[in-house]
């Protein structure tokens, strides 16, 4: 796939913010689904909205597409207000691409007719050429264009849906869990392909997902949504390694958590004294990602940094082992270890932390 084969984008590159969401609220009946949401989606970026089911992420996306309208707040696309007090621009006038969860292809049309559905009348003349170009953009063979949607695999359907949405050269593309229905292997491949196609076309993209791996790999910006509120917005690295709160930390990855005592730049926990970067002092919770923890053999006379633990269970997982360790006085923790280190039940080991701990005020 090359840049020259992708439809050129005509607008959106100049504004700093492609989507500007301010104070959005939405309720269904008496139940608030979204509350005071503020979010900037920079032009040309890929933003992921991640949350568990019921967090309101799909509702937020539907507000952006114009299928639903907020009860409070405003949404700007570029410099235009599309939803706000007295303004409600419907979906078909927003010029935003949208790919639904299962593609939502038109079952009564062929692949080619699906892709050319949104083309303007004057473009229909070179329909075949445009369709072929769009199918190539999503790495599909143009010969598929005479097929029916139900003759395609799930991954192919998703890519047709993307090609169909790209046909209108939207500046913004919204993806509603487009990969969740695919098999694990296909999911990663389709995701990479879609990300590449969208980057090549320079389209500002918003992806909604409940999958933390997808959230961390797909975008430049991750917005964590929980119970209708944004818990944290930041780069994938930031939200993963410096999560705003314990729930966010646990949602985005495995976590090993200790009760701890913080003092300027350090935290004292079961693993000993570990560096930390917050200004917190006093009783707190210290959090480590499992990959920060190193398990080594207990050597007599060795440096005492770290914590002595006993292996109580070993689960073979192929490339790695999952160790359940019992730490003196603080209960047990689970740590995956890779490599040839063959630990056995009953072994005494030393656990050490690499890097900074993330600390939160004790709850």
């Amino acid at each position, binding site marked *: 796939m090359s840049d020259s084969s992708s439809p050129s984008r005509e607008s959106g590159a100049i504004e700093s913010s492609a989507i500007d969401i301010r104070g959005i609220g939405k309720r269904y009946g008496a139940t608030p689904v979204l509350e005071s949401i503020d979010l900037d989606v920079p032009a040309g970026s890929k933003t992921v909205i991640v949350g568990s089911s019921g967090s309101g992420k799909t509702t937020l996306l539907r507000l952006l597409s114009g*299928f639903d309208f907020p009860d409070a707040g405003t949404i700007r696309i570029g410099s235009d207000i599309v939803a706000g007090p007295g303004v409600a621009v419907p979906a078909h006038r927003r010029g935003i691409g949208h790919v639904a969860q*299962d593609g*939502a292809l*038109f*079952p*009564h049309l062929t692949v080619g007719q699906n892709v050319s559905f949104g083309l303007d009348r004057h473009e229909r003349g070179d329909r075949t050429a445009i369709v072929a170009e769009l199918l190539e953009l999503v790495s599909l063979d143009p010969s598929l264009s005479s097929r029916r949607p139900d003759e395609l695999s799930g991954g192919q359907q998703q890519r047709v849906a993307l090609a169909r949405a790209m046909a209108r050269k939207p500046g913004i593309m919204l993806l509603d869990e487009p990969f969740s229905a695919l098999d694990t292997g296909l999911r990663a491949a389709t995701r990479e392909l879609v990300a590449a196609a969208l980057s090549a076309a320079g389209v500002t993209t918003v992806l909604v997902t409940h999958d933390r791996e997808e959230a961390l790999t797909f975008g430049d910006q991750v917005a964590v949504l929980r119970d209708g509120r944004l818990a944290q917005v930041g780069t994938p690295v930031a939200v993963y390694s410096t999560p705003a709160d314990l729930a966010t930390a646990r949602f985005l990855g495995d976590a090993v958590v200790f009760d701890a005592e913080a003092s300027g730049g350090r935290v004292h926990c079961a693993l000993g004294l570990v560096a930390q970067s917050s200004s917190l002092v006093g009783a707190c919770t210290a959090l480590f990602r499992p990959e920060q923890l190193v398990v080594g053999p207990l050597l007599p006379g060795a440096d005492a940094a770290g914590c002595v633990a006993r292996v109580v269970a070993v689960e073979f997982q192929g490339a790695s082992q999952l160790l359940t360790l019992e730490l003196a006085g603080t209960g047990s923790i689970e740590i995956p270890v890779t490599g040839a280190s063959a630990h056995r039940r009953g072994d005494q080991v030393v656990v050490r932390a690499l890097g900074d701990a993330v600390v939160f005020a004790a709850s």
Partner: protein
Amino acid sequence: MAAGVSLLGLVPLGYVAVTAILTGGPTLSALIFRARVGELLANTAGLVVVTVPLCALVGVAAAWLVERTRLAGSRAFAILLVVPLAIPAFVNSYGWVSAVPSLNGLWSGVLVAGLSYFPLVYLPTVAALRRLDPAVEESARSLGVAPIGVFFRVVLPQLRLPILGGSLIIGLHLLSEYGAFALIRFDTFTTAIVDQFRSTFNGPAANALAGVLVLCCLVLLMGESGARGGARYARIGSGSARPAERSALGGWAPAAYLFLGLLVALSVAVPFASVGRWLVSGGLAAWTDRYLLTALGQTIGYGLVGAVATCLLAFPIALLAVRFPSRVARILESINYVTSSLPGLVTALAFVTVAIRLVPALYQTAALVIVVYLLMFLPRAIVNLRSGLAQVPPGLEEAARSLGRPPLLAFFTVTLRFVMPSALAGSALVFLGIVTELTSTLLLAPNGTRTLAIQFWSRVNDIDYVGAAPYASLMILLSLPVTYLLFARSRSDRMVVNSL
């Protein structure tokens, strides 16, 4: 067994072919190519060409208003619009003639038949609208298509199958209906055949007309199957069970109310008011008709026996189709569909002739009546049993067998139990068909047969509209529960309407 039923189903077509051959070319062409036949053909074709598109239009518009708009009371309208199915067309016609005695000719035929049959498009369209994936329509909107465009480019094409299927059934009803058109003195092939049959009994003229009628039926069948083509709009994704969004009608709401109100008034209120008026003027005396109880008993008797027999015979055919699909099974099944698409009148004529020529002992017996009912209504039972059987996961029966049940017992205790609701629904539809059947019963029934339909018809023919009213109301009362069943099933994802 399945083959036996299907062979029986070949009798009507065979009869038409054999009589055509026996009559001989010259006589046949003299009987067919005459002004009277041309006139009948023009009437019948005109009726079909005007009524079917009108019904499709009204049915789709009503379904959309009821399912996809925020009209207050749409639930009430949803039910009221199915009620015409409980009123036999000839009773509706009686209601209209009572209200407007001057009715006659093509446009009156269109009016009465259209009001009777539009639910045959309305009901499957409602069912299809409820099953459409709303995400597909949203996709169209996100591709820049305005709501009106979404309806024509996305919704309507997906409704093609229910609209075509409903239209075909309406067309077949129009070809085979006798009573409704006889009452408003509008001549179609069917009314002419009945008249011929009554004057000359089994003359070649009636047979020749029946042949042309059968050809008309086949033209409709092929037309529908051609228009349907290879279309099969499977809902592709799993989709969520999210209901589609309803649109606000704004300034159009009064027009929508007017349309739906008028439709209900003309199709339900007029016949009910007429029947009610005659009931009131007849008072209690009309109910002392000495044949009323006999007729009720006979109708229920024929209905029950016919329904049970039809279901029993449909079972092997449905089982073959679902569990052991093969070319033979498909052919057996399609023979039944074609046979039941033929006017009941032709089937009745065929069996009258066959009985007289080959098995005189059967002529004028209730058994022969049941056989004809069976052939006419078999698909109603097959369609339901098929969908019922298809919904029973074979794994369930296998689980029962792995738990120690012998295969036959496993089938009876597991599969059959699950199929019972579908079998009951199928039987109910056959029952509905028999209760409101007039034409073939008129031709076939043994002397002294007094079903509700026959008694109603003889009263009406004696211009005793008051005396006919109790029979009309009993037929409607017997039909209403089955109609409600149809309505409920159309909302629960099960298609049963395609065999009405």
